[in-house]
């Protein structure tokens, strides 16, 4: 196959970030690589002059998003019951029987200077906290936050109810906030 120099160069430049992004949603790595390969293959048929006039990053990640959701739909659609994702109920740790915060567990307000939140070290901690999410929760959360799918599309793709969707999103945001609080904000002197 003859690739135009510009397309081959784009593929080299963007393959790494596309793979990192795909691996947030699809495991194992080989399957994420297949999704990236599908997305890159899809641009081969596009007129380079047309590509030159588009926002290439938005275009590539737009195609990748569709390749990822296609795979998620095929992989998880028959799966039912997200209730097991909530087996280790975080709320039992955070709230007492009356629905108020358990003493000492509520995070205090984050006061770290903004410039410390742009460092490689900080984003390494964010990465760890995102990767620690339970698999089903992570799937829902990353589709909404990183693939920027609407709630209806997430529910339809993964075959889950709106109530399960809310549970997953809530669980993810609570867990990530607590993780960042414990591993970064509590330990950084403002």
């Amino acid at each position, binding site marked *: 196959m003859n690739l135009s120099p510009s397309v081959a160069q784009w593929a080299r430049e963007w393959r*790494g*970030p596309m793979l990192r992004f795909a691996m947030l949603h699809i495991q194992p790595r080989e399957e994420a690589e297949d999704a990236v390969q599908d997305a890159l293959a899809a641009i081969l048929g596009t007129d380079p002059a047309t590509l030159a006039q588009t926002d290439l990053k938005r275009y590539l990640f737009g195609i990748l998003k569709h390749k990822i959701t296609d795979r998620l739909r095929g992989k998880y659609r028959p799966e039912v019951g997200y209730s097991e994702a909530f087996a280790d109920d975080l709320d039992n740790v955070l709230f007492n029987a009356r*629905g108020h*915060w358990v003493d000492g567990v509520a995070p*205090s*307000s984050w006061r770290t200077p903004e410039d410390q939140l742009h460092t490689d070290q900080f984003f390494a901690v*964010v990465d760890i906290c995102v990767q620690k999410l339970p698999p089903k929760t992570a799937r829902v959360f990353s589709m909404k936050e*990183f693939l920027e799918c609407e709630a209806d599309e997430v529910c339809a793709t993964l075959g889950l109810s709106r109530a399960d969707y*809310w549970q997953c999103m809530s669980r993810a*945001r609570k867990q990530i906030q607590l993780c960042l609080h414990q591993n970064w904000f509590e330990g950084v002197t403002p």
Partner: protein
Amino acid sequence: MMRCKEYIFKLTSGQLAEADWPERFWAAQHRLICRHCRAFSANDARLSEILNRYQARLTQPDEPPLRPDGSSAPP
């Protein structure tokens, strides 16, 4: 009266952002009286910004490889 557990669930699930005004009113009332939920809400808003930047970093193109002399390869 809204409890902390209910308030935090509505906030973090995304329901509060889509709620009608009476629900948002009661949520605001709860925030006024609960400093823990006030702090959690402020952190949650900051978390959204952090996640946006995290996504942007993930999708940045890779740095060009360094040459043996330490300079970067031409584009």
